[in-house]
């Protein structure tokens, strides 16, 4: 492609050029949006003096668990992140499971875990700038200014590790299920070569495929979502100075002396 063709292609939109998992992502967002609207309507109609039932009960249980998690891990003053967790955790959990429905898998498309990692990276640095102000830039010259290039490289490692963890887990599941499916298909063909190809696929495959999908889908989704939530909570809350640091000021990491306010 010439330079002019690249520029023209950049401003040209075509549905064929879009990746299929992008539509899976839109479907997951649509599911969450519809659920949010239904739960909002049910919550408004719910009589506070009566116990809630069904979906609203489940959501209230989840909200209490998440609120306790955010308060314990991040502290009460960062509880505005509850909205972020209540969005990211269901999205990530359903994203892991969407492949089971026959739609294109979402987390084994690298753009999805990369986007989640970039969101986490942005939140970490925006929180750090908000609470530390100009002291935020001390991290790049810790412990001595000559470490600036090293720190500029290592600041991107959270993105790479979070992306590769989720992507690797999803991709390994896809590859292993594909390999087992191929092996079972050949094995069935060897054993039941007299049967029609339609029937042969129904005998050996269901139970192993079901078990593998249960592990790589449900269990892996739960574990990876929990790990992502914990990493978000820990890394974001680390950027907020502790109350005792707020009183005495952030430590001068270059010399190790505490900078006393008003001293």
């Amino acid at each position, binding site marked *: 492609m010439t330079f002019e063709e690249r520029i023209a292609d950049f401003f040209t939109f075509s549905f064929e050029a879009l990746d299929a998992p992008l539509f899976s992502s839109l479907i997951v967002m649509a599911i969450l949006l519809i659920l949010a609207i239904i739960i909002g309507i049910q919550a408004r109609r719910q009589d506070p003096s009566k116990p809630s039932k069904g979906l609203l009960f489940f959501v209230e249980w989840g909200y209490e668990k998440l609120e306790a998690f955010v308060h314990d891990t991040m502290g009460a003053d960062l509880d505005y992140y509850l909205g972020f967790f209540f969005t990211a955790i269901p999205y990530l959990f359903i994203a892991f499971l969407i492949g089971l429905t026959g739609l294109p898998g979402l987390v084994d498309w690298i753009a999805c875990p990369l986007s989640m990692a970039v969101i986490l990276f942005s939140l970490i640095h925006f929180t750090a700038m908000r609470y530390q102000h100009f002291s935020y830039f001390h991290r790049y010259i810790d412990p001595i200014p000559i470490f600036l290039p090293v720190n500029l490289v290592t600041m991107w490692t959270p993105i790479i590790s979070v992306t*590769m963890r989720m992507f690797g*887990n999803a991709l390994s599941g896809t590859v292993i299920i594909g390999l087992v499916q191929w092996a079972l298909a050949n094995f069935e063909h060897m054993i039941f070569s007299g049967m029609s190809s339609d029937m042969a696929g129904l005998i050996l495959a269901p139970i192993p495929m079901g078990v593998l999908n249960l592990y790589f889908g449900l269990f892996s989704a739960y574990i990876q979502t929990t790990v992502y939530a914990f990493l978000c909570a820990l890394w974001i809350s680390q950027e907020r100075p502790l109350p005792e640091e707020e009183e005495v000021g952030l430590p001068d990491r270059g010399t190790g002396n505490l900078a006393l306010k008003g001293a």
Partner: protein
Amino acid sequence: MDINLGLCAIGAALAMMCGNFSALGEAWICCHAIDGMTRNPEMAGKLRSTMMIGVALTESTGIYSLIVAILIIFVMGLR
């Protein structure tokens, strides 16, 4: 058989040997978590959730080696 494909297979196998160390690390984590649970049964729930987090983070190095092995096989090997 093309020697390059064989060398790619050896490279992928060497990359996957990193999984041994992540398995050892996970076993170490579970061993110490079980020790803690037997000594302090009322903390079992908290120890279990912390153990799961540690296991998932340790497993990530094995996942990285799997990705490298898959890249070696499917990108370099099948080229």
